């Protein structure tokens, strides 16, 4: 197994839903989707966002788009209009998730 940062095998977009941040994680190639599905669990994401996400993490699968959708509850300092954060709407939570490292098989070719 080797370690790979999610940004190499996925792209993402994030935004806000009240005090929850939504992060959509999309496999850069269809063959990466099962790996994302296996490794990027709600527990792993909650752990990754320690100190940012105070609530629970829900995960939804969109196999048709080779994508996962995460809802990070209590992650935006009270939400869009109350939040004092520079990123009150969670626009950069996408790349915060893409910092995460996961283990992948040694023979997985990474490109694109």
């Amino acid at each position, binding site marked *: 197994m080797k370690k790979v940062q999610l940004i190499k095998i996925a792209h993402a977009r994030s935004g*806000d839903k009240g*005090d929850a941040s939504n992060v*959509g994680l999309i496999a850069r190639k269809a063959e990466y989707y099962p790996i994302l599905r296996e490794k990027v669990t709600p527990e792993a994401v909650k752990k990754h966002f320690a100190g940012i996400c105070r609530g629970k993490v829900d995960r939804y699968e*969109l196999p048709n788009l080779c994508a996962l959708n995460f809802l990070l509850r209590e992650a935006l300092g009270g939400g869009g*209009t109350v939040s004092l954060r520079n990123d009150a709407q969670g626009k*950069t939570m996408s*790349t915060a998730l893409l910092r995460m490292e996961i283990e992948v098989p040694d023979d997985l070719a990474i490109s694109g």
Partner: protein
Amino acid sequence: MKQKEFIRIASGQGYWGDLPQAPYWQVSKGPTDYLVMDYLAEVTMSILQKQKSRDPKLGYAKDLLLVIEQILPIILEKNIKVITNGGGVNPQACRDAIFEIARKAGVKGLKIGVVYGDDIYGRIDQLLEAGHDLKNMDTGESLRTVRDRLQSANVYFGAFPIADALRQGAQIVLTGRATDTGLTLAPMIHEFGWSERDYDKLAAGIVAGHILECGGQSSGGNFLKDWRNVPDLANIGFPIAEAHPDGTVYITKHDGTGGLVSVDTIKEQLLYEIGDPREYITPEVIADFTSINLEQAGENRVRVFDIKGKPATDSYKVSMAYSDGFYAIGTLTYGWPDALEKAQAADKIMRQRLEDLGYKYDEFHTEFLGYNSCHGPLSPMPSELNEVVLRVAVRGKDREAIDAFGRQLVPLVLTGPPTVTGFGAGRPKPQDVVAYWPALISKELAKPVVEVTALK
């Protein structure tokens, strides 16, 4: 009237403050049948409600008038219909202002439709007394807890009342609080005669609406996968939905414009601000985002098809805003060397001075721009920063405490760590916190009103 083979619905604004030239580009750079523009964010209604309380002729998106002034001749010449929720809390006043523009331009017979009935601010006490608690969808609390601080309350209506206004011949439809997706779905209902039971087709229109509702964000803007290779963003073409009667939609943009429409740009937008993808709830239908198929059908052309939907719920969402204290935000820039260390020391000094003066806050939030304001504790410590911006922010119920915070910031320049600048904006002033209260209301309790008027 013979049914059209397809219609082109163009997104002109993704939010109030979006690219001002986009609406004109959409009606002038290529064929368009409908122009849809979203102006309302969650707290916009409370700002508009305040404006209306000061002047009964205000309370709508004033920028819309500038757009209409610019595009009116061309939409009349090409018979392009305009649909927008820029009517805010006063679509009738917005209509009158547009009629005034048309009158000055010598236009006769212009038909404008307004959709209202969404504003339930004046009915809140009556609803509460009748036992409708309008509970907060997130916390479960009764609206009574913030009733005395409530600033606006609007029901999200959908596409059907807009389609009704189109049926009555409106050239421009102005709504109050309508869903962003409904603006795009409405012309499909109108042109193709879809009914409230055409769940899959309605869901297709909703998905098209979701793709269009943030303007350029589906046509190459904010595209994370490969932003460097998006051509000519300066002239970005906003997305256009080419809708067909069977519910198939092609997303495209005008020829010769910049930006990019690809399966990947559409995927990123589909995942934007959604919850459970199998249950995308709108007033018309529940759309299943896990049924969406995408296929690159040409250059800057994506086919969106096979979408499934199921019957809508029996309630509307209500968006309410209430006053919740004050906040202030201030920044100072610290230069090399030891920029971060100096900014951290300044933050500490400021906190101590305010504490010594006895001020308390619900929240005192510090970030260091250039180091951690985006990713917080996930940000690796850089070896050395050339400069860093200290950003401090406070929130609380006591306006005086917030004001005191403002008075303590700039003095740090001469009474704190060295080489600090960027205080040109002066003392940060207290601002109102407007908090959001989402709730549900039975569809029986809120009925849209549609009114189409011709300019005499």
